[in-house]
């Protein structure tokens, strides 16, 4: 009974806008946002815009902390071991969340130790080829790779990164044999393609665009089942699902995670705050300015997808390492 009365007082205080006791309301101090990646990437860029705006909604600043290393697992582990009080959050992507922990020894259980706060958007890797190659479409590429096993150099941005996963899925689905070349990130992978070291690579729309418009690269297919409908240059690029390879499904989800032990009321507040963020005018302006879209999904819904995806990656890892 006492609790209920307390809630009433809280509600009343909220209605008349009286200042609340500091300890009562989350958040009452700055929130640390761990990013398990280095400076300058798309996550860093998103975070710099988002943290500036979400502090208006939460009433407390959100401070970015970049913890790269160990293929993203260093920062992820730090977030997993942080106190589950909502003052340490993680901004990551699904390869780090659902795949990478299965490939190395980690000191946390990703599905049990994290809950999703929000998915902001996703980016689909596109399969691109040099314009001087004989194949012009995805089917021609597969036929060429089958006729010339091991001849094609396919670049990617690092093992189990957002380019290596669709590449592995493609190899698994089509049975082609290509020479997979790792690079230190998407930039060097693109540079290797432009230099002619690699003939094909996987890359996101924003990075491909200038070179596509320049006539240097050809766009063969986009991973997943969602066409890039809002993209004036790439809206007609066929999806892997439409081409009959629905197993080449990896898209990079940009997700905010919280340690699983966080209390439900605070977690709901965070999730609501992110939903509110999506309607914020300056956030929308920011996302447009960096050439991205908002493709919001509430944390509750995203959490339902995670176990299934986790398992599909278990199979993929087996098929890759089984060779």
């Amino acid at each position: 009974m006492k609790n209920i009365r307390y809630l009433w007082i809280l509600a009343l205080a909220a209605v008349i806008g009286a200042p609340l006791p500091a300890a009562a309301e989350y958040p009452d101090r700055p929130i640390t946002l761990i990013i398990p990646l280095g400076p300058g990437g798309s996550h860093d860029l998103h975070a710099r815009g988002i943290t500036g705006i979400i502090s208006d909604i939460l009433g407390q600043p959100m401070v970015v902390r970049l913890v790269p290393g160990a293929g993203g697992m260093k920062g992820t582990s730090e977030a997993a071991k942080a106190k589950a009080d909502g003052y340490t959050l993680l901004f990551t992507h699904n390869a780090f969340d659902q795949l990478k922990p299965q490939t190395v020894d980690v000191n946390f259980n990703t599905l049990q130790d994290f809950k999703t706060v929000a998915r902001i958007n996703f980016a689909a890797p596109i399969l691109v080829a040099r314009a001087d190659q004989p194949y012009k479409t995805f089917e021609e590429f597969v036929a060429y790779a089958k006729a010339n096993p091991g001849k094609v150099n396919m670049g990617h941005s690092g093992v189990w990164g957002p380019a290596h996963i669709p590449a592995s899925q493609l190899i698994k689905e089509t049975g082609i044999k290509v020479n997979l070349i790792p690079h230190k990130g998407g930039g060097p992978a693109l540079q290797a393609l432009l230099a002619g070291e690699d003939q094909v690579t996987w890359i996101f729309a924003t990075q491909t665009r200038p070179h596509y418009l320049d006539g240097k690269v050809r766009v063969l297919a986009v991973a997943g089942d969602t066409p890039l409908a809002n993209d004036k240059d790439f809206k007609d690029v066929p999806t892997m699902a439409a081409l009959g390879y629905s197993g080449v499904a990896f898209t990079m989800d940009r997700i905010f995670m919280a340690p699983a032990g966080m209390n439900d009321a605070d977690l709901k507040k965070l999730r609501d705050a992110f939903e509110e963020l999506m309607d914020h005018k300056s956030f929308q302006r920011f996302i447009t300015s960096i050439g991205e879209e908002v493709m919001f999904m509430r944390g509750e819904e995203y959490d339902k997808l995670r176990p299934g995806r986790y398992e599909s990656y278990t199979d993929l890892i087996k098929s890759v390492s089984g060779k």
Partner: protein
Amino acid sequence: MFESFLQGFELLLRWDIYFYISMGLVVGMFVGAMPGLTTVLAMAVLLPVSFNLEPMLGIPFLIGVYKGGIYGGSISAILVGIPGTGASIATTFDGPALTRQGKARKALEMALFSSTIADFLSDVATLFLIGLIAMIILKIGPPEIFSIIIFSLILIASVSSESGIRGAIAAFLGLGLGFIGTDAVTGASRMTFGIDALSGGIPLIPLIIGVFALPEILEAVESRARTFISESVDMSSAGERLRWYEFRRSIRTILRSTAIGTGIGMVPGVGQVVAAFVGYSAAKRASKTPENFGKGELDGIAGPEAANNAVNGPTLVPLLTLGIPGDNVTAILLGAFVAHGIRPGPQIFSEQGALIYALLLAIIIANVLFIFLGYVLLKPFAKAIQLKKAYLIPVILALSFVGTLSTGTTSDLAVMVVIGLCAYILRKLRFDLAPLVIAFVLAEPIEYTLSQSMLYARGDIFEYLFVQRPIASVFLTAGILWIAWMIFGPWIRGRLRQQRA
């Protein structure tokens, strides 16, 4: 093209651009001078500030932070022997020695002039040769990077310290430390002994502080009873400025290092550190008094400082012409461009030529501004060293810990202390630890580019490196010949002399 160049000039005719550049320079200089704080982090934190400014203000501001930060790293390298970044490791060879001789201000000014002049020249070269540089960069793939690093290492080793065998041991230790953590190619963890703190490898900043700062502090504590407690470094002449004749002697070195740095700047990823070491080695080789190097030679400041700054121009080229950032700094700049709706890439000169030329010119002007700003701001730094060592050392120690913690995790502190103790022991055994650090820095690119080359080679790596890749072949062959000359050269010369006699 010429028209957009002129339009670019017009964009520069407003005073607030210079105000923001200057602010960036000053902020960067102070951040860079703190041991453990990195310029890259300062840029990442200040990136949102640039979102709210128009591009002609925000991007020059960030570039100011960068340029100021690189120089700030040299300040601590010269004054207390702690390099702020990998780029200023080579500056610790002669910097602290000059400080001990009471020539701190001369060294700081030499670093300032050589840095800004080299940066200026390389930026101008970049502005005019951007198309050519872009072409060369595409010719440099993994096998070329591999062979250029190997060649540079041979060059550096050939002029380094007295004891070859100790240097080699230190270098192999560095390589070993560099292999700890995550296998860069397969992503598997290795040599971590199951310690979580090592899962991401040994981070560079704690390593640098551990190797350079802690032994220095321990040695000072150790010798307390003898000298240090009452000593404030002899600073009667610390305020003395660099003389024209002293600067004039280093002009050749600055120009040589500018050429070296601009060249190495086209090799992605490893630029500044290698350039600084090669610049130092070349200056030592060309010097009439190589025996003074390492004991406080102004040319030993000019060599690495000019070279590491000359890298800056060419590293902008892949960013501007291809939209590809070569390192963390250019990645953050790309973020700033993108947030303003500017997409660097092949079309940028036709679409936004005026803006890009204006930015390049602003970068060049930033160097000129920095000469004046730095000249004025050096005084408090040169003064700080006049503190009694009894005060200075605890302050440095505290700053090192705070700095490490601010950019890393608590486990980094443990890594730093352990490395510091080991480094102290190695120093007692008269090991030179600079080869350890450069080998550590280069371990990953060497391994990575070699693995990539082997994948490209599909089998025969030697045929691939020496036959299929002419540029790689030239560097590797030159390196081998150099080693042969170092081993047999004295013998051959001796024989020739005998015959003549």
